[in-house]
């Protein structure tokens, strides 16, 4: 149990995918304009991450390893991720059309979110057990959502700040991302994950 909690905290906070590994920066910059849509994308990504970690673990250890097909891991993982993203897209379109509209192109782009492929590869690299892999996926998703929501909160207030003209838009967003990353470095000493 202690192991699982450690994996979760490591994935979500100390080794946050966005702010420590700098994976998934594209949606991090693109969808962090509003808290509502960032929560939506965060939940969608968390779902895809958890499911992708679960299914790729099963495929990796029950199909790829026994048949010596480890060299196919990238292709396999991408297929799995793409399928889940398609599925999530259908669900969101059915359940919440406004959210579907707000996320726009970033919803199908979860497929190419490197944080998710990175997650599955880390999982293999670190020899996680099945439960650890699931918790790892969940933690990574929660961490991604956390980073996205913090960023959206800051950017909503940023509207009232006088940003110098050359830095407006993506410029100031990247600077803030850098500051957040430094702040997250402070968690680094808590545990080694």
């Amino acid at each position, binding site marked *: 149990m202690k192991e699982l909690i450690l994996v979760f905290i490591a994935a979500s906070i100390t080794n946050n995918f966005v702010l420590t590994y700098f994976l998934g920066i594209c949606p991090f910059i693109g969808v962090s304009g509003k808290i509502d849509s960032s929560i939506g994308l965060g939940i969608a990504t968390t779902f895809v991450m958890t499911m992708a970690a679960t299914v790729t673990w099963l495929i990796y250890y029950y199909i790829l390893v026994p048949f010596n*097909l480890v060299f196919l891991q990238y292709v396999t993982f991408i297929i799995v991720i793409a399928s889940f993203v398609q599925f999530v897209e259908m669900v969101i379109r059915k359940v919440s059309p406004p959210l579907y509209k707000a996320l726009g192109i970033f919803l199908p782009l979860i497929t190419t979110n490197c944080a998710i492929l990175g997650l599955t590869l880390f999982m293999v690299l670190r020899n996680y057990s099945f439960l650890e892999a699931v918790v790892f996926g969940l933690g990574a998703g929660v961490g991604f959502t956390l980073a996205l929501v913090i960023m959206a909160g800051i950017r909503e207030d940023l509207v009232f700040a006088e940003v110098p003209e050359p830095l407006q838009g993506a410029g100031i967003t990247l600077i803030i991302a850098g500051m957040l990353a430094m702040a997250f470095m402070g968690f680094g000493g808590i545990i080694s994950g």
Partner: protein
Amino acid sequence: MGLFLASLLSMAGLAVFFAAVLAVADKKLRVEEDPMITRVNSLLPGVNCGACGALSCHDFAERVIKEGEDPGKCRVIGEEAREELYRLTGAEEADEAPVVALVNCAAEREHKPASADYNGIQTCSAANLVFGAGMECQYGCMGFGDCVKVCPFDAIHMEKGLPRVDYDKCTGCGKCAEACPRGIIAMQKAEYDQLFHVACSSKDPLLRVRKICPVGCIACGVCEKLSEEKYFTVKDNLSYPDYSKQGDPEKIRPLAAKCPTKVIKEIQ
């Protein structure tokens, strides 16, 4: 051979499995869309330029069907498709004049004296931030072609350091006007077959314009004073045409010919 077969089979198996899952999900979760929206969407150009005010062509199609928006708001669409659209939606066709982009600067490269060398990022938006891109004129075209890059229809090109609009291709979407940091490009409704515009945006006083630009408007007022009809009005050291009075080109052409710097241009 065994490895080859195993990889083939496992990949095929996974693909079929996920395809099946998605197919089932698609059946269960399909969102029924109004077939009219699909029809309208297929008629639209699909470049998502945003000139109509909608987010995308699909969004516009939705608005046309659900909110009864005038399909003529799409300025990009071809003549045939437009008629088809009106037939489909049953809306009345409003006779709207086309909108075109006017470049209100006539200074080619040789006309623009430099006050400094600019070696920075080669875009207008960046150059404009640094002491006017090293140009004497603070109002004129810098010639880096931000407008050219942003045009979705390949209708604007750089010639001798000045953008030229290809009016056969221009749809009036207004992207270039938005991209120009100095606001030189104006979007204007072409009510008549020809259009006279003042190809200068400079609000500098006469003496300064005389000194730095051979083709700028010096606000002498000849175009305003020569006719009772007020085809042009001089304000803030610049002459402004009244586009609604340009029905008879024969009355304006002499005025344009009298302009000492020949800055009044006619567009067919």
